[in-house]
């Protein structure tokens, strides 16, 4: 009878630690995720520009790998945002760099051709990807 209690207590401990683990789980490094879609920043932007609703259904929360030319790069204390050329003068594809990739982002310059993997959050003026990792950089 006593043994049962030990099993029950162990089970509860196990369950609560699994719960605790999932509750506190951080994001996976985007670098390790497989891209659901791959295209150029020009293609992604023009597709979004043509039909935002449809693109949201297709791409929201998905891992997109986008290659393109770096139009601007905005660095400050807390974040790095790499904007890729979209073919449109006022807009672009904006990639918010994940913490794990801040180091490599230091060497990115305007005009570089780059491949970035990130999670699609939709379109404001730019199409915005978050938690971006830099998969390839040719400067």
């Amino acid at each position, binding site marked *: 009878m006593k043994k049962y209690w030990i099993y029950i207590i162990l089970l509860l401990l196990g369950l609560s630690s699994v719960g605790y683990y*999932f*509750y*506190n*789980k*951080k*994001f*996976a490094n985007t670098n390790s995720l497989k891209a659901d879609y791959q295209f150029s920043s020009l293609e992604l932007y023009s597709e979004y520009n043509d039909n935002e609703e449809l693109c*949201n259904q297709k791409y*929201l*929360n998905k891992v997109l790998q986008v290659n393109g030319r770096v139009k601007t790069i*905005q660095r400050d204390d*807390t*974040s790095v*945002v790499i904007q890729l050329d979209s073919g449109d003068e006022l807009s672009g594809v*904006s990639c*918010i760099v994940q913490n794990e990739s801040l180091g490599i982002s230091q060497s990115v310059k305007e005009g570089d051709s780059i491949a970035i993997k990130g999670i699609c*959050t*939709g*379109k*404001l*003026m*730019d199409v*915005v990807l*978050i*938690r971006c990792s830099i998969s390839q950089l040719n400067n």
Partner: protein
Amino acid sequence: MKKLFLSFVLCTGCLLTFAQEKYFTQNGKVSFFSATSVENIEAHNAKASSVLDANTGKIEFALLIKAFQFEKALMQEHFNENYMESDKFPKSTFKGTIQNMKDLKLDQDGTYKVMIKGIMNMHGVEKEIEVPATFIVKAGVITGKSEFKISPSDYNIEIPGVVREKIAKEISVKADMIYQPLKK
């Protein structure tokens, strides 16, 4: 004399265009904090866009809900799926007017306190709010900052009983924008 007159007209023309200038940013920061005795929650969005019309005092903000980043993956998932329903309502906007635009001298260095009144659109609900903001003009750079509180219940965001203790009734929102002149 004619030339002088012409250059005078041209100059006033320039000044007028300057006064009508619009300012914008696409990399504005918006974050929010929920503080309770059980847990502190914060999330950051680095891609808010904003346009300020120096002439009329009209000011607009827009951001993508999904671009809010949390430290914990599960929280971000719950925020998007259960509370903000960001598949259905991907954007949030605020359109307002600076009430005391005459006090805000964008061409003069200084710190200016203003009130902004307008319509917040979030989770498919529109609500009129009035928030204080501070503009700092320094060496031609215009920074706008604001801090205010909103209640999830005002925007039909239901917090289930199990987590009610963990999420504050009023959420503090912080906005931090560095504006650039909008070139035409």
